[in-house]
């Protein structure tokens, strides 16, 4: 399939991006926002195949705990990894403060 996604296929992907892990929900939501409208051909079928993996298999791929054996998926996995950017502003985390550890009773 080389054409861009129709509404039906986009909705199917959106539904299949609803996962058991909140972490995956967040990454896949970002992925769809960023890539859904330009997914087609080999990339689309790679993404569809990846979505058939279990949550932990996908999550392990995204956080690079495992690498994809199938090189055809490499590019899509990389796009997914790029969607794992921090959601938090770290400037205000008070690094290096003095911590007081009380004696425990």
């Amino acid at each position, binding site marked *: 399939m080389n054409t861009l996604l129709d509404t039906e296929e986009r*909705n199917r992907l959106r539904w299949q991006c609803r996962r058991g892990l*909140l972490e995956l929900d967040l990454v896949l939501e970002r992925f769809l926002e960023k890539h859904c409208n330009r997914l087609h051909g080999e990339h689309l079928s790679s993404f569809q195949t990846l979505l058939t993996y279990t949550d932990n298999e996908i999550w392990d791929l995204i*956080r690079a705990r495992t690498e994809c054996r199938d090189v055809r998926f490499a590019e899509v996995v990389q796009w997914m990894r790029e969607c794992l950017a*921090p959601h938090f*502003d*770290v400037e205000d985390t008070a690094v290096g403060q003095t*911590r*007081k550890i009380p004696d*425990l*009773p």
Partner: protein
Amino acid sequence: MSLTDPVVHDIVLVGGGGAGIRAAIAAVEADPKLTVAMVSKVYPMRSHTVSAEGGAAGVVKTENDSFDLHAFDTIKGSDFISDQDAVEAFVKEAPRELLQLEHWGCPWSRDPDGRVATRTFGGMSTPRTLFAADKTGFHMLHALFQTSLKYDRIVRYDEQFVTSLIVHDGAVRGVTAIDLHSGKLLPIYGRAVIICTGGAGKVFPFTTNASIKTGDGMAMAYRAGVPLKDMEFVQYHPTGLPGTGILITEASRAEGGYLFNKEGDRFLSNYVPTKMELGPRDLLSRAIIEEMEAGRAFEGKHGQYVHLDLTHLGEKKINERLPFVRELATKYVGIDPVKQPIPIRPVVHYCMGGIDTDINGATPLRGLYAAGEVACVSINGANRLGSNSLTECLVFGAWAGKHAAQYVRQGGSDSSPAPESIARDEWARIERTYLQDHKNGERIATIRHEMQDAMEKGCGVYRNGETIQAARDKLLTLRERYGRISIDDRNRVFNTDLTAAIELDFMLDIALAMAEGALRRTESRGAHQRRDHKGRNDQQFLTHTIAHRTEDGPRLEYRPATITRWQPEERKY
């Protein structure tokens, strides 16, 4: 769109997570003839059970533990409104279920001597939580799922979105489900129905729950006349990541993590001095909120937070025992916990309340059973202890499956099909409500955000009559506005606008039951803390809240909690 040909099974099971699959296995093992339809809106291995990291509790080492100790910890954790007969039965069955799961392939982590490893969880007075590395829920679900595949009498209906229970002549007869692949409504008839659809964390804005946790099963039962129990008790997990709600597992505290405020104080010494970071979740969440209100928390883009510090544990221990935590913090907040503390805040985690069931999972509606987070037996009372819920899925999932099978064997709900008009009427309702033109109607996302905001403000960690009343009034307005929603997508296949609208409908009912329960419980107990009614009132509220759905909103009544051997006492740690 239209109806599709109905299918018929002996038992219809809604939900494919831990409790659901356990129930399905128990049902087919109880009776070699019956068939079970396992109906789920997502594939079973995408259920929220996979997200449980910490572990499953049970008395598996008796040298420093006993059933009585596990029972007492659970009852004390519940702030004394769990039903003690249910808790006693639960703790006795727990080890058998955990062993059974090992036989089915769950790889419980081991100590160096080869015995199963256990860790301490908040509120548990001894290490009794089994775990499978940092993927306990995944391994449990995987073992259950693989086992279920052995039985061809468990017939899966994946990506089927259940919209209602079919009830006829005072008994449940099946469900109606939108087949997402065709967009048609599929009636699935059965002589018993088991609901295992999990909780409803998405009623709130900051939650550890995945997006599928929208309280569908609770709302369906509620509409079918089954009461919801103890809905005001919603557990906040003390350590979620700001912004996303991602859970930093309690294991991070079990392994020695500290909580600090912005003044560098390990502030829990002022709240739970004997347990510190291993105090129960409700007390820790409250302590963090108190620090925020006292101006001793950090301010960030996503609101206030405190620090969970693991730096003193060292890289080796963090990598060995908490690798998942390190990855989450690095990926989602850009902080390496080996070097820096992790920002955390309390986030909604678990519904103690749910469908009113007895120990066997039976509800007041003939033929309807429920188990797991969707149900309220109740062993969790006003506050669940971490790691009891995975075991609860196994124990009560098995009992619900077994008793549903027994009910069917004894005749079940009448085997003659319910009138077809019930499914036709349901389809007509869906078309009328969602698929006809409602120009310039209300937007689903707007109502959902306003509902979540109202619940955060009115039914958060701390509540008072005024804020709950405001939330309740807002929810009633949203319910009225919901009648004018419009959805853009008119496609049949995988219509995610339609499913989002129906999920919102479910959540509005759940939210209202939570708010009403919170408003009427004029005391503070467990996860329900009223600023205007401090302290427990055992004289009046050693009771379960039973909410019945009416057109005018929830009608509440109260049922005494069952006390067997442990009299209520002050809950101190």
